[in-house]
């Protein structure tokens, strides 16, 4: 009863994905990938990703036997966060939260250019002989994309 009521009007609705949000997605290094288990128990991991500019989708690579893949098989609703952290000034914190559906694609079927961009980006981290057969690509198509800069919030929805 003492609490402030949240004002939804403060979120700015955009018709296209804001350019700043795209910049974060292009330049980010780690993505935080959220899936959910049975009975809506969340699971979260840090992952490598590539933003696919032409299709406006996000590509991630995971081990086939990993927990997140098992979760996606049961529920393909996922969420991906890429953000810029500022330990000094909270008004400079910004980030993108993508909520959407995940689709699993065998590594051989992923466009070659995407695989190359991915390998180039994470060359330091990927061992010799990458990608091994035990891996699978996840493509996330955004349904809702939220972008924040300090305390300003933007929201893009696929249907608008």
């Amino acid at each position: 009863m003492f609490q402030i009521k949240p004002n939804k009007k403060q979120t700015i609705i955009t018709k296209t994905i804001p350019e700043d949000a795209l910049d974060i997605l292009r330049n980010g290094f780690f993505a935080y990938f959220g899936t959910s288990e049975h009975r809506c128990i969340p699971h979260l991991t840090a992952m490598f990703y590539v933003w696919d500019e032409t299709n406006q989708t996000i590509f991630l690579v995971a081990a086939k036997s990993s927990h997140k893949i098992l979760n996606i098989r049961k529920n393909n609703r996922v969420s991906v966060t890429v953000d810029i952290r500022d330990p000094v000034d909270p008004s400079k914190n910004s980030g993108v939260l993508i909520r959407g559906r995940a689709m699993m694609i065998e590594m051989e079927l992923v466009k070659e250019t995407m695989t190359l961009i991915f390998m180039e980006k994470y060359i330091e981290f990927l061992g010799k002989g990458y990608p091994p057969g035990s891996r699978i690509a996840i493509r996330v198509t955004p349904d809702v994309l939220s972008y924040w800069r300090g305390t300003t919030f933007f929201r893009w929805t696929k249907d608008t």
Partner: protein
Amino acid sequence: MTSRAQRTRLKNRKWIYEDIVERVPPFRWLPPTLDVVAQLVLVEGLGIAAFLYWQMPINTVIFGSLAIAYTVVWSAGCLFIAPSLRRLRDPTNEPELEVLESYRGRVLLNRGYELIGGVSFFVFFVGYMFYNPNILQGFLGAGYGNPLLFILIGVLAWDVSYRLGLSFVATLLAANRSIRLSLAARRRRGLQYTAYSEVRTLKFLDSVNLYWGASAILVLPIAAADPLIFYGLLAFLGAILGLSALSLMAMETVPWLPPDVEGVLLNERFAYVGVCTKRQPHVTPVIFAYDGKALYFAISVGSAKYRIIKENRNVAVLVDMRDRKNPVNNRAVLIRGHAQILGEISPIGILRMFVYGLWLVRVWLRFQTKYPRYTKFYEDRGDELPPVWQIKPFVSRVLVRVDPVKMTYWREASPTPLRV
């Protein structure tokens, strides 16, 4: 390391009381919870029959019933303590494992430790009754001198002595174990630790020890008949209280998580919180504080997290060390558990604040020391922000406490599940 034979012995070895309950009819036919009731009915029935037969004074039946009540209350505690002690899982840190093994061995396997206290109390009691027979005479009235009644009193005295002795020895051993465990915990390396479910069980056992000791208050009115016994019992209660406090304080200093995990939680500044509503996960970054036990993060009442956590308290929190250049330096901790919102003005919120009380102030201070620049930012420019983002406890900001259920630690890309 414990050998398999010792493990089996640990599992099968019972205290004398448990053996009786398991083997002697009618207790062996009853489920454990009813054993205590059966014990009460049987012994009290016997006592009342003796009271009627020998026409003893009325206060004898009251005092006798108190002694019987003590044995029953103690036995109820015994039903919890021994099984939980056997169920304790092994710490992954060798020195801590040794401490726990020796404690378990002493409490469960060593009949000497089990009986020494009881025998001492019993010998003292019998000796004192010979030295000062007036006390017993006053209690038993007309029946004094009857050998059957002496046997009955003797059995009751042994029952009480055995329990007093065992509670004292158990509390003494627990205090010794807690101090040694706390010292051994300082020698942890890497992912070695005692899972905090076990730490919690040990603390629970300590509280049962305290309950055991404190239940001796029931025999205080009987002891009031003689100053020596009375003050002796008071000293016993004081010792139990002191040792239990010492044990609990030592257990408080045992960290709940292994040093590698604590290293990530104490040094990192950001955490990612995953929540879920209507099968849709939601991930956002937060600032957080870790107090050696649970993880706390502060959220605005205007955020989606707040709304979702109120619907579904399952959360996943990921804290990670990032290094773009060197893969070896990448580490992460994923804590999955239950969230509890603290700092709401609502009946349940006020109850939680009452439970956590000053601890919340400590957590707020921890936030302020961990994020001095953030605190300054909100102090200087807070008024320019929308009301829901201002730092106003209870009004616009609440704390969320995460109690872990599952935990995973990553070094590079290889996960290690940790027991909680």
